[in-house]
Structure formats: C-alpha cells, structure tokens
C-alpha cells in the first residue's frame, strides 16, 4: 500500500490540473473514502442511499477543492460536507420507508436497567441523533475514535490536533451523548 499523501501535497497536486488532479482525487478517495462511507452509512442505514450521498459528497469535494483554503484539515472539511449532505438527503427524500435498512449499528448488553427497557434500533437512532447535535469537532473525533477505532496518534495526524485535545474532545462527546440518551429514555 502506497504511503498516504498529506493534505498540502494532495491540494497542490489537484491544483496542477490534468492527470495530477486525477491522481490527487484518487488519493483522497483512497485515504478517506471508507471513513466517509462508514460515517454516512451509519446514519443512512442503507447502501444505496449511502452510495448516492457519498457520490454527491465527492462531487462537491471535487468542485470546491480549488477554493479550499486549508484553514482546517482536509478530512475535517470533508466530514462537514458529508454530515450536511447526509442529513439534508435524509430530510429531503424521506425515502427510508420501504427501503431495506441495515441492522442497528448498536447492540445492547444486559445489565443496565434503563437500556434493558429499550431496543437496539431506538438506541442506535438516538446515538446518531446525539452525535448530530454535538459541536462539529467533538462529533468528528467521536466518529473516528468510537466507530473507526483509530488511535489518537492517527487522528492527531489527520486532524492536525494534539492528542490531549482529542482526548478532551472525545471525553466531552461521550458525556453529552450519554446525557442525551438518558434524557430521551427518561421521557
């Protein structure tokens, strides 16, 4: 497997145009495609919808990359596009009715009386709702750490953030999600 390109290298390559742009874009999809797909599918719960959304996200990335200023990490920027695109698509189309949905992304282990009274579907949806309500950075770190199980050192490289800051973000994200779920279940 070839060595991943850093953000600056990818952007410079893309802006050179022609075959260089093709190589840069393929590198983007190769390095970030799976994470984006996982993020989208976790919410969409269906491959066809996730495929459509991911395609739209990548088109937006391709079209807007020349204007990307590099104020944030490339993945942070793409994560934002993917999050908005997923939520907008699901809100607009409302087409999940009648579509075969994936099994819930979470399973419940016995032992927690509050969780025992609910279903995996409900807890999965509520967790996604809770993640969507988080500040972007916390949601992003939670996605990479909890779902993608990346090491802090790896996330640190991707997001250009110190490991200490990432740990704090992840801790706050978990706390807020827990509160969100308990509030939802208590009502």
């Amino acid at each position: 497997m070839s060595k991943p390109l850093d953000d600056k290298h990818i952007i410079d390559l893309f802006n050179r145009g022609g075959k260089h742009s093709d190589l840069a874009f393929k590198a983007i999809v190769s390095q970030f495609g799976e994470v984006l797909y996982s993020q989208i599918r976790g919410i969409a719960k269906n491959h066809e919808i996730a495929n459509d959304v991911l395609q739209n996200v990548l088109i937006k990335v391709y079209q807007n990359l020349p204007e990307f200023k590099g104020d944030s990490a490339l993945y942070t920027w793409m994560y934002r596009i993917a999050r908005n695109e997923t939520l907008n698509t699901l809100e607009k189309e409302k087409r999940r009715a009648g579509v075969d949905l994936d099994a819930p992304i979470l399973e419940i282990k016995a032992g927690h009386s509050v969780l025992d009274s609910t279903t995996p579907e409900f807890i999965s949806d509520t967790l996604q709702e809770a993640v969507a309500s988080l500040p972007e950075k916390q949601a992003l770190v939670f996605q990479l750490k909890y779902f993608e199980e990346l090491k802090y050192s790896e996330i640190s490289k991707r997001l250009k953030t110190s490991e200490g800051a990432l740990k704090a973000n992840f801790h706050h994200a978990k706390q807020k999600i827990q509160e969100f779920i308990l509030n939802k279940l208590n009502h």
Partner: protein
Amino acid sequence: MNEEKDIFDFIEKRKIDMPDKAYFDNLAQSVIDSQKTKIIPLYKRPITWVSAVAAAVLVFFIVNFNNPGDIVTPSDEISFNDISKEELLAYVDENIDEFDIEMIAEFVPVDELNAKYEALENTMIEDEEVDPIESITLENITKEEILEYLNDEDFDFSDLEDEDSFI
C-alpha cells in the same frame, strides 16, 4: 444506581458492511469523468472553437456574397429631395387619415399653413373652373332650372297649396 454506569459499557457496535476497494476506485473514476465533461472551460473546448469559426464564416458569406442585390448601400438610400411634389401630395392624399392636426401643426408653421391653404384653394377653383359662390344669385337662375331641380329632388308640389307666401 444504574444511571451512573457508563452507557458505553453496555452497548456494543455492530460492524458495518463495507464495500471493497474496487467500489471506491470506480466511484473516484466516475466522479472524475462526470466532472471533466462538465467543468472544461468554454474556451478550451475544441468543438466550441470549430463551431464558432464555422458560424462566423457562414455569417460573413451570407451577409456579403449570398445576395448582394438585397444589401442597402448609401447610394441606394432614398433622399427626401428625390421625391417630387406630386408624389408627396399623392401620398398625403391617400394617407390623410394617418395625419392629425397636431402633427401637422408641429412640423408646419401656422402662417405658412394658412398661405398654403389659400394657394391650394385658389388652385382648385381655377382648375375646376367653378364660379365663385358670390357670383351665383337667384337672378342668374332660370325658372326652368328651378323646376328641374325640384323634380330631381322629388319635390311634392301639393305641399305648396297651403303655402300662399311661396313664389
């Protein structure tokens, strides 16, 4: 207390089915292909250049060579001075309804208009050899002419029986 337990200790993630590498490679290529056909600048498209040049040449030939007789040149333009007075009068006569008084007054000074009217009136009287109205009196009309006029008008003479004052 259960609520103090960490929820994350009691939930377990299920692995999402991920597509294989070929899926992502194909997706990247299809996005590249779709964008290449869309975002090529206009001036970089060879077909646009060819079309533009062909259209320009076609227009040039149509304008200059196809039907030169139809093209108006300065020498063909009609000057106002080339129109005779008779033609102007004939045009005005035929299209008098198109002219309104305000329009005429706007372009022709009133004094000049009066002079033209008098001159035109005199010309018409001379042309038709009609006696001036002032020269016609009852003395110049014979009794036969009066009777002929009344006959032409289908005058009912019985109406005159009660009119003692008439004649």
